[in-house]
Structure formats: structure tokens, C-alpha cells
């Protein structure tokens, strides 16, 4: 099983999220999963400008040739894509959101029904299921966590895949690893 972690932490040092991810990764590797991690902060990722060249001029390719060029093939090769992010105002911060925006070249512009809703058709044969690990702040309530979870479930519907793992850094990383392996 191939697991790709996209780490959206921009803070230096041993944050709660970094400590959690270290244990989470160790738990996955102990079960012989193939784990790779990309730190989004180390990649140059530009904001999507909504030009839609990736849909109608250079199908499947963004006009920006930046850090996303490393991410696209890695995503398509993985079985589970785990987003790891601190929460800012109860949701993922700019770095993570702009990376999500840049996922549209992976989809085809054509419309089709997904769960009775209009969505874009897939460009590739298979996509990884999703996971989300968040580091909440003291002011984040259980309701905030369910709101961000819901936003990622919707992101999953858009990519025709389920959100298989949702965890906060308050939980046991070993347990999240077990959950990820059954995803």
C-alpha cells in the first residue's frame, strides 16, 4: 500500500503535528506500507488563477510549471493521500488550500453525475482515497472539526473518492495509522 502525506505545516521545529506525523509514519512503516511525505512549505506552489488552460488549452497540464509537478505523479501513484495541516480559523490555511485548488488539472472538464450531483469527470483511471490529519487549536471545538471534515468530504466527492481517515493530533497516531492501513 502506497501512502502519500502532503504536509501543510509551515511552522518550524517540533510542532504537535510534526511529532504526530513522525509516529503516524512509523506506525505505517511497521506494517510495511510504502510511505512518502512531501512538505508543501518546501515547494514553490503558485495560486490557481482560474485560467482553465489545464482544461481547454493544454489538457491535464497547468500553465505553471512549479512544485505541483512533483505532486501530481506522486498523488496518482498513491493508494491513500493524507493531508496534514494545522488549523487556522478552523480550517486549513493558505498553503494547503492553494495546493487543493491546483488539483483541477487531475480532473477532466466534462460533466457527469456523481452521487446525483454534477461534477467533473475523472481524467485518470484511479485516484487515492483521502485522509486528513489536523492540529486543532484550543479554540477549535468539536463542531469546528466536523466543519473542516465536511469540507474535505466534499473535496473527496469532487475527486470521486471517499475521505477514509480523519484524525486530530489529540488522538493516538498509532490508531490513525491502523485506520489508514484499512482504508
Amino acid at each position, binding site marked *: 500500500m502506497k501512502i502519500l502525506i502532503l504536509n501543510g505545516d509551515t511552522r518550524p521545529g517540533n510542532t504537535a503535528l510534526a511529532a504526530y506525523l513522525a509516529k503516524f509514519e512509523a506506525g505505517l512503516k511497521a506494517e510495511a506500507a510504502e510511505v512518502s511525505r512531501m512538505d508543501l512549505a518546501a515547494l514553490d506552489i503558485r*495560486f*490557481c*488563477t*482560474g*485560467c*482553465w488552460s489545464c*482544461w*481547454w*488549452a*493544454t*489538457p*491535464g*497540464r497547468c500553465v505553471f510549471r512549479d512544485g505541483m509537478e512533483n505532486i*501530481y*505523479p506522486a498523488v*496518482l*501513484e498513491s493508494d491513500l493521500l493524507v493531508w496534514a495541516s494545522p488549523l*487556522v*480559523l*478552523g*480550517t*486549513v*490555511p*493558505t498553503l494547503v*488550500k*492553494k495546493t*487543493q*485548488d491546483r*488539483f*483541477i488539472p*487531475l480532473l*477532466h*472538464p*466534462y*460533466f*457527469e*453525475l456523481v452521487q*446525483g*450531483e*454534477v*461534477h467533473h469527470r475523472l*481524467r*485518470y483511471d484511479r485516484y487515492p482515497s483521502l485522509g486528513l490529519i489536523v492540529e486543532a487549536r484550543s*479554540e477549535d471545538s468539536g*463542531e*469546528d472539526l466536523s*466543519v*473542516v471534515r*465536511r*469540507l474535505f*468530504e*466534499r*473535496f473527496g*466527492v*469532487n475527486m470521486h473518492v471517499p475521505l477514509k481517515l480523519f484524525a486530530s493530533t489529540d488522538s493516538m497516531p498509532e490508531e490513525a495509522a491502523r485506520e489508514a492501513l484499512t482504508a
Partner: protein
Amino acid sequence: MKRLLLNGSPRGKNSNSRAVIGWLVEGIVSAGAEEPVIVDMAVNDGIADAVEAFRATDEIILVFPLYTDSMPGIVAAFTNTLAELDPGQIRCKRIGYVVHSGFPETLQTEPLAAYLERMSARLGLVHLGTARTGGSEPFRLNPMSGRSRTSNLFRSVGRSLVQRGIFDPDTLAELAKFRRLGPGLQFLVKILAPTGLLNMYWNVLLKKHGAYDRRFDRPYAPAT
């Protein structure tokens, strides 16, 4: 009173958000209020300009398209900057949102609307309402869209803000009325999908860019 309209579309001035802003301004002005200030976040130092204008204004409308089921990255950059400000500088400002999607159904913007309400409360802002509508991609392109029912509803939203200090809830409900496709429309989409009729817009643009034959390209397909 000073009002600020923030355009959070990554497309800047040439955007469906700008079309909506035009309709809101018409409603606001027709109710006797002064012309609002407009800032395009995607233009040059737009995010810094938006933050500066936000600090200087009491009432703000933030307009943006749905991007991958949430706010576009540049709008996140804006809200993340607000989070770093001294809370006392922004507390009690009044804010309303317009979220529009190319997808026709408004159920697709519901989770984001729930988020925006919580975010406003967390920043200590007074939430005036969130206007949601689907099918927004033709707004900027169709010369008739300025006469549409949707444009009139947005004018009403602008008027209600001046006259009553909120986004009129009945108008918001009207804008968001098309929540999901009924069984008949779902069936229609299913049978039209293979005919190409549903995707005429895309095909015209693919052909215009000489990319129609490459439309199914998979540049990042893993080697098998």
C-alpha cells in the same frame, strides 16, 4: 456610511464575481447609498489592499467562486491575514458573503456557508448573511445575464443591505433555491452526458485552443 466590496475571484476584474459585484452595487446605489469601494484581490497587491480597506471600513461584502469545495487560495490568504490582526481592530465590523459555483446545485456550497458563519463569529464579526447561487460560469460571458432573475435577486440583496442592514433572508432563499437536481434532471444529465450536448461549452473552447484531439491527455499517468 462606507461600504467595501471585495472581489475574491482569482480571475480578477474579468470574473463572474465582478458581474455579481456590479449587480450588488446597482442595488446599493438604487437604495440611495453611496457607491461602495471595490478591491480586486487577484490584482497586484490585492490581498494587502483588501486587508487595508477592510480595516478602514465598517461594512464589507466578500464575493468569490467556490474552488475545490471551499474558498479560493487567495481568499484563504486574506482570512489568514485577518486572523493575525489585533482582534480589536476588526471586531464588530459587519460582513456578508456571496459564494457562487459553476456547478448548478447550491448543496455544493452549504458546508462552506456553515464554515463562513463560524469564521465570522470567531473573528468577532457581525454576519449579515451568505448569498449562494449555482450556475455562475455564464455571468460574465452572457450579455443577457444583467437582465436575468439572478441579477435582480442580487440587486435586491444590495438594496436590503442599505434599507434593513442585512441580506434579506427570503431573497437569499430564492437565490439558493435550486438545491439539487431532481430525479428528472438527473435522468436527463445521464442520457445527455454521452451525446456531447452537456459539454458543448467545453468542446467549443477545446476546439478554439486547438486542443480538442488532446482532451483526454494524461500527462502525469504513472508508468505501468
